[in-house]
C-alpha cells in the first residue's frame, strides 16, 4: 500500500500534540471525518482511512465503527484493500464480535484463491482470531491446503491447524495422519511447524501421543542431522544451525519420552551428544542446552545424564549473563527436591549469587540457599545468610528472617549458637520478624538454663544500643526481668563481664517505658519486668514502687491496669510478692496448653490479674502447661484458703473471660461428662458431695457440692481443707455462701490438688456454717476418692 500522505500527516500531527486533551480533540476530529467517509463508500481513500483508524486504535481509542468497513474491504478484489482489511479484522475483531462471522465466507473464498499471497492473508487471519465456529467451518479447507505443494502455504496452513486444534481439540484427529508425513519435509520452516503441530496434538490427546512415539527415531535422526551439519547460512544463528528447530524437537522429545522408558532410551545418546557438543557462549547455544536439560530432567534418563544436566546448570550459574543465571536457578529450584546432592556441589556459586545486584536473582538465590541448608553446612550457610540479611532489600527481609529461623531450628548445632543466631537476626531485622518469634525465643531461652547469664548480658547490651526493634526489646525486657539478679552479678564465663548497678538496669527499662518508639506490648513487657526486679534487687525497691505508681494513671488501659494491680501487690499483698514474682518454670513444649500459654501469655496474666484478688497469680507461675489452670480463667480464681470476698479492682479485662472460654473450648476434652460423685458428709440435712472433675498425672481437680435439705436457709457456709505436706492444695472461690432450704440449689467449690510425688491422697475437710443463728462446725476425713486417683 502506498503510504498515504494524509496518514503520515495525521500521525505526525497527533504525535506533536502537547497535551492529552489536545490529542483527544485531534483524534475525535479525525474519527468523525473517517466515519463520514465510510458512509460515503468512497473507493479511493478507504484503505487510508482504515489505516488511520488502526493507528488510532493502537493508541487506545475506540474504533469499533470500523468493523463493517473491514468486512467490506476484505471482500474487495484488490490486494491492497484486502491486505488492510484483513489487518483490520485481526486487530479490531475477535470472537466476541458478531462481525467476525461475516468474514467467514470471504476467508473461505480466499483460501482457494489462485494467488498464494491472498491465501496466506486468509490463513493468517484465521489463525489469529478464528473463533470455534469459523474453525469448524473451515477445517476441511485447511486440510486440503496441508497437502498443497507450496511450502510457503503449507507452513501457514500447519500453524493454522495448530490454532484449530487449540480451539477444538476434537478436530485434531483430522490432522493426525497428515502430520506424520510432514516430518519428512526438508524445508525447515515446514518442519518446524510440523513439529509444533505434533506437539500440540500430543499434548491434547494421549492416544495420539502413543501413536507418535513411533516417530522418535525419526526425530532423533533429524536432530543429529542438524547438529552435525556444517555451516548453513540460512538458518544459522550465532553458530548454531537453526536453534529454534532444535529447541522444538527437544521439546517434542520431552513430551514423547515422559514416563516411557523405551522412548527415553532412544533419546539418551542424542541428548548426551547435544549436551556436549553445543557451544554455550552465545544465547542461542544456551537456549538449546537449557532445553536439553529440561528434557533430561523430565524423561526417564540415566543418572549419568542427570548429573551432566545439573553440571550444565552449574556452568550457567557462572555465566555473566544475568538471564542465564536466573533461569538456571529456577530450574535448580525444581531439581533440588529430587537430586539434592547434585545441587549441593554448586552451593558455593549459589551463595555468591546472593550478592548479585539484581533483585530477582537475589530472590532466587535466597530460595535455593534456604533449600540447600543441611546439618553439615549450617554454620557456613548461616554466616552467609546473616550477611545477606543485613544487605538485602526490604521486601525480602521477612522471608529471609523466617527462613533463617526455620533452618536454625532444624539444624542448630548447639543452643548457644541458636540463641546467638536469633539474637543476630533480631538486631538486624527485628521489625520484619513474625509475631510468634518472641514467645518462641523466650521458650528457647528458658530451656537453655545454663546460658541464662550469657543471654541476659547480651540482650542487655543490645537493648542499650538500640530500642527501636520491638521484638528485640520485648525479649530483652522479659529476660532482664526474669534473670535480673544474674545480670547484676555481672559474672559470666562466655562473655566479658560488665559491672552494672541496679540503677543502670532500671534506667534501661525506664527508657523503654518512656520512649515513643515502644509499642504498647513492649511497654507492658517493660513494666512487668520492672515489677519482677523488685524481688530480684535489694536497694531500689522504692524507685520501682514509684515507677509503678506513675503508670497507675497512664492513658493506655492495659498499662494502667497492670500498674494498679502491681501497686496492690506492693501495698496489700506484699507478703505474697516474692511468691508471685518467682522465676518462671521451663515451658514445656509438648503440652497442649503450651501454645495457648504462649499466644495469650500476656492475656493470661491479664485475665488472671483482672480477677478481684491478685492472688490469681499462680497463673503466671504455672503457665498453661498444667492444663487445669485454664479452668481458673473461667472460675473466679482464689488461692486464699479463706472465704473469698468480692472486691472491685481496676476495670476487668474484657478479653479475659472470653479468652478463657476460648481456651477451654480448645481444650474441650478437659470436661468429663459422667463422673461418679461420692457423698462424703451427711449430717443435719447438710450434705457434701465430692466429684472428681479431671485428672492428670500429677494433679486432680475436685468439686465439692453442698446441698441443704433442711427447712431453713443455711448461711455463711465455708469449707476448709487440709492435705498432707507433699500435696499442694488450691481452693477456688465457692459459688456462694448461702444454701437455700429445700435443696433447691447447691454451693459448689472447686479444689485443685497437685501431687508431684504421687503419694496417697488424703484430705481433711472442715465445714462451718450458720443455721438459724447457730454456728456449726464439722470435720470429715476423706481417704478414698471417686475415680482411681493414682494407681
Amino acid at each position, binding site marked *: 500500500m502506498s503510504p498515504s500522505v494524509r496518514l503520515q500527516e495525521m500521525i505526525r500531527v497527533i504525535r506533536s500534540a502537547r497535551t492529552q486533551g489536545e490529542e483527544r480533540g485531534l483524534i475525535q476530529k479525525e474519527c468523525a471525518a473517517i466515519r463520514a467517509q465510510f458512509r460515503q463508500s468512497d473507493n479511493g481513500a478507504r484503505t487510508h482511512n482504515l489505516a488511520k483508524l488502526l493507528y488510532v486504535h493502537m493508541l487506545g481509542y475506540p474504533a469499533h465503527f470500523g468493523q463493517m468497513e473491514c468486512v467490506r474491504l476484505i471482500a474487495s478484489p484488490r490486494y491492497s484493500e484486502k*491486505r488492510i482489511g484483513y489487518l483490520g479484522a*485481526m486487530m479490531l475483531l475477535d470472537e466476541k464480535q458478531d462481525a467476525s462471522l461475516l468474514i467467514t465466507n470471504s476467508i473461505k473464498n480466499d483460501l482457494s484463491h489462485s494467488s498464494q499471497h491472498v491465501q496466506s492473508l486468509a490463513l*493468517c487471519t484465521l489463525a489469529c482470531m478464528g473463533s470455534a465456529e469459523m474453525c469448524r467451518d473451515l477445517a476441511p479447507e485447511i486440510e486440503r491446503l496441508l497437502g498443497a505443494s507450496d511450502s510457503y502455504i503449507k507452513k501457514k496452513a500447519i*500453524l493454522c491447524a495448530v490454532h484449530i486444534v487449540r480451539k477444538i481439540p476434537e478436530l485434531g484427529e483430522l490432522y493426525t495422519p497428515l502430520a506424520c508425513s510432514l516430518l519428512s519435509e526438508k524445508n525447515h520452516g515446514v518442519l518446524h511447524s510440523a513439529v509444533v503441530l505434533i506437539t500440540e496434538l500430543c499434548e491434547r490427546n494421549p492416544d495420539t501421543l502413543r501413536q507418535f512415539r513411533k516417530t522418535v527415531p525419526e526425530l532423533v535422526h533429524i536432530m543429529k542431522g542438524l547438529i552435525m551439519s556444517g555451516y548453513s547460512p540460512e538458518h544459522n544463528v550465532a553458530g548454531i544451525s537453526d536453534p529454534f528447530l532444535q529447541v522444538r524437537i527437544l521439546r517434542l522429545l520431552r513430551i514423547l519420552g515422559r514416563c516411557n522408558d523405551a522412548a527415553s532410551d532412544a533419546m539418551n545418546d542424542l541428548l548426551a551428544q547435544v549436551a556436549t557438543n553445543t557451544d554455550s557462549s552465545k544465547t542461542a547455544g544456551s537456549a538449546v542446552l537449557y*532445553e536439553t536439560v529440561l528434557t533430561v530432567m523430565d524423561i526417564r534418563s540415566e543418572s549419568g545424564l542427570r548429573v551432566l544436566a545439573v553440571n550444565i546448570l552449574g556452568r550457567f550459574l557462572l555465566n555473566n549473563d544475568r538471564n542465564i543465571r536466573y533461569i538456571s536457578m529456577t530450574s535448580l529450584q525444581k531439581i533440588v527436591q529430587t537430586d539434592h546432592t547434585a545441587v549441593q556441589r554448586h552451593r558455593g556459586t549459589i551463595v555468591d549469587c546472593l550478592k548479585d545486584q539484581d533483585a530477582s536473582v537475589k530472590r532466587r538465590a535466597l530460595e535455593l540457599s534456604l533449600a540447600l541448608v543441611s546439618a553439615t553446612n549450617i554454620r557456613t550457610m548461616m554466616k552467609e545468610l546473616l550477611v545477606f540479611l543485613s544487605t538485602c532489600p526490604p521486601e525480602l527481609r521477612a522471608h529471609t528472617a523466617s527462613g533463617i529461623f526455620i533452618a536454625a531450628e532444624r539444624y542448630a548445632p548447639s543452643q548457644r549458637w541458636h540463641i546467638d543466631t536469633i539474637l543476630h537476626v533480631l538486631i538486624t531485622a527485628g521489625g520484619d520478624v513474625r509475631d510468634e518469634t518472641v514467645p518462641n525465643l523466650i521458650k528457647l531461652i528458658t530451656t537453655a538454663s545454663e546460658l541464662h547469664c550469657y543471654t541476659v548480658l547480651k540482650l542487655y547490651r543490645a537493648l542499650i544500643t538500640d530500642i527501636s526493634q520491638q521484638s528485640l526489646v520485648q525479649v530483652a525486657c522479659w529476660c532482664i526481668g526474669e534473670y535480673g539478679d544474674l545480670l547484676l552479678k555481672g559474672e559470666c564465663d562466655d562473655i566479658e563481664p560488665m559491672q552494672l548497678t541496679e540503677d543502670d538496669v532500671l534506667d534501661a527499662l525506664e527508657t523503654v517505658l518512656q520512649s515513643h518508639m515502644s509499642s504498647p506490648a513492649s511497654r507492658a513487657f517493660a513494666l512487668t519486668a520492672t515489677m519482677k526486679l523488685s524481688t530480684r534487687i535489694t536497694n531500689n525497691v522504692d524507685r520501682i514502687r514509684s515507677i509503678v505508681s506513675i503508670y497507675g494513671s497512664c492513658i493506655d488501659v492495659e498499662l494502667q491496669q497492670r500498674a494498679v494491680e502491681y501497686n496492690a501487690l506492693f501495698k496489700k499483698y506484699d507478703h505474697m510478692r516474692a511468691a508471685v514474682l518467682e522465676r518462671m518454670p521451663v515451658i514445656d513444649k509438648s503440652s497442649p496448653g503450651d501454645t495457648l500459654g504462649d499466644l495469650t501469655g500476656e492475656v493470661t496474666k491479664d485475665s488472671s490479674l483482672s480477677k478481684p484478688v491478685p492472688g490469681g497469680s499462680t497463673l503466671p507461675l504455672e503457665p498453661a502447661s498444667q492444663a487445669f489452670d485454664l479452668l481458673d480463667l473461667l472460675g473466679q480464681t482464689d488461692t486464699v484458703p479463706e472465704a473469698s470476698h468480692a472486691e472491685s479492682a481496676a476495670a476487668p479485662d474484657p478479653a479475659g473471660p472470653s479468652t478463657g472460654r476460648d481456651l477451654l473450648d480448645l481444650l474441650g476434652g478437659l470436661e468429663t461428662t459422667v463422673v461418679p460423685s461420692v457423698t462424703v458428709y451427711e449430717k443435719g440435712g447438710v450434705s457434701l458431695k465430692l466429684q472428681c472433675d479431671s485428672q492428670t498425672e500429677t494433679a486432680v481437680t475436685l468439686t465439692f457440692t453442698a446441698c441443704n435439705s433442711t427447712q431453713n436457709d443455711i448461711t455463711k457456709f465455708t469449707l476448709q481443707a487440709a492435705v498432707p505436706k507433699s500435696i499442694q492444695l488450691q481452693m477456688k472461690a465457692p459459688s456462694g455462701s448461702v444454701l437455700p432450704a429445700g435443696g433447691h440449689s447447691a454451693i459448689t467449690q472447686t479444689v485443685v490438688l497437685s501431687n508431684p510425688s504421687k503419694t496417697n491422697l488424703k484430705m481433711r475437710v472442715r465445714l462451718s456454717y450458720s443455721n438459724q443463728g447457730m454456728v456449726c462446725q464439722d470435720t470429715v476425713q476423706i481417704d478414698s476418692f471417686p475415680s482411681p486417683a493414682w494407681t
Partner: protein
Amino acid sequence: MLFRNFKIIYRRYAGLYFCICVDVTDNNLAYLEGIHNFVEVLNEYFHNVCELDLVFNFYKVYTVVDEMFLAGEIRETSQTKVLKQLLMLQSLE
C-alpha cells in the same frame, strides 16, 4: 516477569522494549533469540530501522510479524526467506 499464568520475555533495544508473552513452560532463551531475529529482520527491511520508522509504517511492521510468527508460534526462522517474501509483497502494493 510472571504475569497471571504467562511469562513476559523482553529485550531492550536503545529506547524500545520488545516484549513477548509466552507460557510458563516455554523456553525463555529461545524466545529471546526469537526477538533478536525479529529485530534483525526489521533492521534489514527498513534499512537501519529507528523508532519513527516503526511508528509511521506500523502496517508494514504487522506484515513482518505475520511472516515470522503465526498462531502464537515462530513460523519462519530464516531471515533471507522472510526478506524475500517481504520484498515480493511490497511490489504488489
